[in-house]
């Protein structure tokens, strides 16, 4: 991949600052972050607790507003957008996978998956729906409610929900944090495939080197800044870098 042929980034962040509290109690969660997320890539954001990785993701996903700096998703700058436009952006161009699954308990798996479309008032594309369902391997569980499914199954439903509206970019916040390793591997495998086979762009926040080993690129955060980056990582190389970061 040559520098000149670099496509427009799916999302980019310039000089992003996010502070909480005021005066003495001020906490700089992000302290001048620059980052480009390339389309069709699986990017991991890693860092120790308090490094600002969740805040970065919230800002990129239009869930939180930066104190200063710019966030651009799909060529649109978020800072200029009003709540209504942000809502539409989240609805049509961004997908989410949460650590706690966050499925609506009263809806079946199928209804949860189709929720973003039904919020947007769009009809699902049946072929795409089938493709996504097949990819997550949930075809036989569509009629079940979340409390009738295992954690891994619930998270796969959540993944399907994130993909079904064909977003420009999917943000995954510790998607394996609540799962045992076998279920975690299933979910990560699915995310990997959706990048390889479906061309999806994914940004995943994690502190698990094994999870990061599934990605194309790992960005390391510490004290609110990007401090390192790793291409084509493996669980072992990520673990080394992490150890290095924490003992720095």
């Amino acid at each position, binding site marked *: 991949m040559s520098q000149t042929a670099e496509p427009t980034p799916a999302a980019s962040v310039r000089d992003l600052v996010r502070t909480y509290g005021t005066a003495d109690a001020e906490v700089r969660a992000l302290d001048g972050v620059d980052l480009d997320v390339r389309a069709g890539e699986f990017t991991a954001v890693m860092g120790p607790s308090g490094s600002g990785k*969740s805040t970065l993701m*919230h800002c990129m*996903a*239009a*869930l*939180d507003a930066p104190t200063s700096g710019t966030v651009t998703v799909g060529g649109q700058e978020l800072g200029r957008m009003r*709540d*209504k436009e942000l*809502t*539409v*952006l*989240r*609805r*049509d161009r*961004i997908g*989410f996978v*949460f*650590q706690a699954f*966050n499925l*609506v*308990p*009263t*809806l079946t798996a199928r*209804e949860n998956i189709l*929720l*973003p479309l*039904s*919020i*947007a*008032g769009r009809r699902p594309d049946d072929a795409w729906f089938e493709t996504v369902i097949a990819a997550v391997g949930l075809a036989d569980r569509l009629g079940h409610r979340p409390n009738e499914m295992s954690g891994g199954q619930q998270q796969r439903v959540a993944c399907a*929900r994130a993909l079904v509206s064909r977003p420009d970019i999917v943000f995954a*916040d510790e998607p394996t944090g609540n799962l045992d390793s076998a279920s975690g591997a299933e979910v990560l495998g699915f995310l990997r495939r959706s990048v390889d086979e479906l061309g999806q762009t994914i940004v995943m926040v994690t502190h698990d080197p094994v999870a990061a080993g599934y990605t194309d690129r790992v960005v390391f955060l510490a004290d609110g800044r990007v401090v390192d980056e790793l291409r084509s990582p493996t669980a072992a190389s990520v673990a080394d870098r992490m150890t290095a970061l924490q003992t720095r």
Partner: protein
Amino acid sequence: MRTVTWRTLLARKVRLLLSGLAIVLGVAFVAGSFIFTDTIQRSFDGIVDGSVPDVTVRAASDPVERRGGPVPLAGVPQTLDAPLVEQIAALPQVERADGTVDGFGLFVVRADGRLLGGAGAPTLTFNFSDAPNALGEPSISVAEGREPRTGGEVALDVRSAEQAGYAVGDTVTLLSTGPVPQIEATLVGTVQFAGGGLAGVTLVVVDTATAQDLFLGGEPVFTSISVTGAPGVGQAELARAVGTLLPSGFEAATGDDVAAEIQGVIGTALDFLTTFLLVFGAIALVVGTFLIVNTFSILVAQRSRELALLRALGASRGQVTRSVLAEAFVVGLLGSTVGLLLGFALAAGLRLLFASFGLDLDSTPLVLRPRTAVVAYTVGVLVTMVAAYAPARRASRVPPVAAMRDEVALPETSVRRRTVVAVALALLGSGLLAWGLGGAGNAVLTVGLGVLAVLLAVALAAPVLARPVLAITGRVYARVFGAVGVLAWQNARRQPRRTAATASALMIGLSLVTTMSIIGSSVNASIERTVRADFPGDLVISNAVGIPFSTSVADDVAQVPGVERVAALQAVSGRVGEDGLPALAGDLDDIEAVVAPDYVEGRAPRTVREVALDTDEAEELGLEVGSTVDFAAAEGLESVEVDVVGLYEPSQALQGGIVSRDLLDGSGIPAQDSFVAVRAGEGVDVRALDRAVERVVADVPTVTVQDREEFTEGQRERIDQLLLLIYALLGLALVIAILGIVNTLALSVVERTREVGLLRAIGLSRRQLRQMVRLESVAIALLGAALGIGTGLGFGTVLQRSVADQGVEVLSIPWARLGLYVLAAVVVGVLAAVLPARRAARLDVLRAIGSA
């Protein structure tokens, strides 16, 4: 999105059912009011249709009220001569003409000696005629036996005969207000009325000559003529033809016109009843609104994470708001439907209640007009959605990022903004109260809105007002119940808005009950004071519903040993020019000796050309001592010039003009008495005299004898009965308030599942846990009681002050009763906690701690 709404509804059906119940009760009241009054209307429509002929010839001034009101024989009936009937009957347009004699003042004594009907629907007496009504069927048909043909024969309507316990062939005792107080007649038949039900009216049918003897002094004349048109002749044409023959002062009214007039009068009375019932429906709905606001607030709070998720997935604020409102819509729709059905039950209950007062509507099925359903649904759905609007808006303000967090706090309106709105509302309410009590505009509506505004202001400010009340509760709880008390107290004040909103529902009911208690108690105290002072003489003989009675009663009583003197008074609907002047006519010397009006100016009248007025009446008519007025004893009578010689302070018994009975001589007004005051001789035991007089009038069941004590008691009883009715209706508001507390507690327990588990894990026993929930409930109830009784004291005092110059001059606050309300609030609190406490105690400790 619709799916989410729908599933959420299903998942929380019990919760929503509870808040829906508030709507159910409110709507039931509204619908029941309409169904009931529509049923009465239909019943009377039947009576009107069944009784009105094609054309009625009647005195032009004949007010319809005479047919419906209990004002018997006060004026002189203007009569139609018998030959006129023949003349009308001879017209080519006329098929037949029948002279009618009708009147009030005849009462049926039941077989067991008691009076039939009494204070309820009237007894109507008329001559038998098989003349058809405008529909072509006879108004009256014989059901059993035959019609009365000569004196000494009588027929009753089937239902009355049955109720009175008479069969054809029995001897019926009738009481008259005329010169002969008691009449015996043989029941020769029973009759049926073409209009179906009679709403409890008793029909007494006699032959024409007897009717003329009873009501028209035996003259061969009629009070009206029923005219039936020849085939093909319309009502208007018939009325014109008949009109040409009539002497001046009479008119030929078409059946349609007469029916419309009567229905108008009935409609006015029914409007009042409808309004009265709707007021309570409105109160129930206002209280219900609080319950719904609270339920939806809590549901939204519990779902805030889910709502944040929807926002994160791209739902707009509007979509979130709409989804909550859609839930409200469904709750409102279901509540209205059940409410409408319950309304039927309520109307049936009201029908039973009114039947016990003598207004019997059994034969008319309950009426559901489309308007009732439209109003029920509109009100139910609208109230629910309005109540859910604020929580729905709050739901939409959940930040999407909250979906990622564990603890989610909903943004709340600032206390300052609430306080500003509360103060503004309180000022508005006070203004409306002052304006309405000052007599401006539609006083009832203005005062009602004022009260509502003040109550809403207090409800808004309740989180602030609650602090001192809860502080006291907390101190008591800590001392009496120890740690459990402290926990309960802290739970109650943890969410001051929720606690305050729950208490507010109870506050409204208690506030109104307190207000009514103060008014009732003040009215009673005032009555007691004035009645004791004003009671004329030592004994009073009167009729409970103002029906005059024969003068022979006074004559008989005067003969009773121990009676020093009697003053017999006859009420007449006098006229001064265009104005009405109700007056009492009697022997002027007797009045002065027994009743002794309290003259503030001038002196008592001594001759037939003199009149005394009460001060209010004089002011209203613009008269003073020395004025000369043209006074007529009844409308249509020739007036006489009389001098105003004195002004007296009006009292319960004495009001209006006082004139000599001689003024009525030759006026044609039959001599009757409306009340008789008795002065006991020196040293005579009034109690004993009371019993002696009662024995003398025992055969005239229409009159009652009362001494000062009994009279006061009777007056109080009427107020107490009215109060009881109002309390019963306000009870509905209290039921809804209890539901509100149950709801809040149940939701709080669910919300605090983890905390409850923790408390249990560290050793709180099930009993202590139940006690904790119970104490929290009682704290809420006590807060409601404090706010309600506080505002009620304010309202009651203000209302009493505003009517102080209208006879309610004593402010009496029933402290004991208010104390009872506080106790009742504690009981309410304990009862409301039963289910939520049981639920909390049943939680499995481990699972409770584990749950998120």
